[in-house]
């Protein structure tokens, strides 16, 4: 049986103007042009999108789940980055 190892692409779809592209899934295609066409047929059969990005999966660099705690730790001890950290007297408006 003949197989052709087409590369894997990640598909991002903008569902409507004003929203950012969101990851929809992945697919195989021989090149970017085919990836776009396949993505249209696969992920927007019911008008789910107005714009599509395709990115070779191999081009994505991901953080490691293994070090998720130390990697994201710097944000954990900075509650003062959130508005709820601050005490404001009752009755003060528009703040």
């Amino acid at each position, binding site marked *: *049986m*003949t*197989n*052709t*190892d*087409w*590369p*894997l*692409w*990640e598909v991002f779809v903008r569902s409507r103007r004003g929203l950012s*592209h969101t990851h929809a*899934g*992945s*697919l*195989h295609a*021989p*090149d*970017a*042009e*085919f*990836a*776009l066409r396949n993505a249209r*047929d*696969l992920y927007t*059969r*019911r008008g789910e999108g107005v714009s599509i*990005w*395709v*990115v*070779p*999966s*191999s*081009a*994505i*660099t*991901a*953080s*490691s*789940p*293994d*070090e998720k705690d130390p990697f994201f730790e710097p944000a954990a001890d900075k509650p003062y980055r959130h508005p709820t950290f601050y005490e404001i007297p009752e009755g003060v408006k528009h703040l």
Partner: protein
Amino acid sequence: MATAAAHQAYGTTEDTADTGAYERAFDAAVAADERIEPRDWMPDAYRATLVRQMAQHAHSEIIGMQPEANWITRAPSLRRKAILMAKVQDEAGHGLYLYSAAETLGTSRDELLDKLHSGRQKYSSIFNYPTLTWADVGAIGWLVDGAAITNQVPLCRCSYGPYARAMVRICKEESFHQRQGYELLLALGRGTPEQHAMAQDAVNRWWWPSLMMFGPPDDESAHSAQSMTWKIKRHSNDELRQRFVDICVPQAESLGLTLPDPDLRWNEERGHYDFGPIDWTEFKEVLKGNGPCNEQRLTQRRRAHEEGAWVRESAAAYAARHTSRTDGASKPGETGATRA
């Protein structure tokens, strides 16, 4: 340390220094109803179970195109033909969502297809029954897709993220499949006596195989208990089968058709419909390859794959030449279509 490829599978148990800690983190995530994502550590058996189930599911979607495609050229109107083509195209799409999701576990598309073609991985045995009349297209939509939806809705909350996300997409689309089948049967049921009889005959033939789609009874289901613990599965086979029967009985009444089971009656005490015994011998025979169409389905699938080889090869050759001409690089996918 950052690693390339968002989908690249995490190492297996042998590669990890402290399996115990990883396993505890995995168990805790599943217990807390969190999702497991592709690069998380997971037990080898969890990975293997998911690959087996998702591959079988994907294969079912694409083999399932055959019995219905059988009627596309003979659809009774342009409306029905357009609907049926859209449905069969959806089934191809569902197969592709599921193959992609399965590939996040470290298997490849070619490997999955090879295993289907060589019979090492299975597909749902329902597709080994023939579509003898146009009414079968309606019965498949109503009963087979109806049973699939009953099975699949809980899978939207499956513990494995990519599988759950694929199922959300699939379930949205399945609803059209079931409704078009019901509408088709309704049209036949209200038609001439011959049309009504054809609809009834289709329901008679598809009812029992549809009940078998939920798998063997709970006490004989090999993988159920572990899959429930892992939250791959949320309800038992018998529970889902009962849910399906309860849904179908009133729907059949609205169609003016009967279900071929003399033991079917409302049980006030249980609050459910009782139904007759399922012929599990038939189920096992079809599973073993002795159904009416097992040979035909696989032969057709292999032929479609072989006959499509030149398309795949020429697309790859075109891509290689096009890429080297535009920027001299041999890397795939650098033709710049991703501009915002």
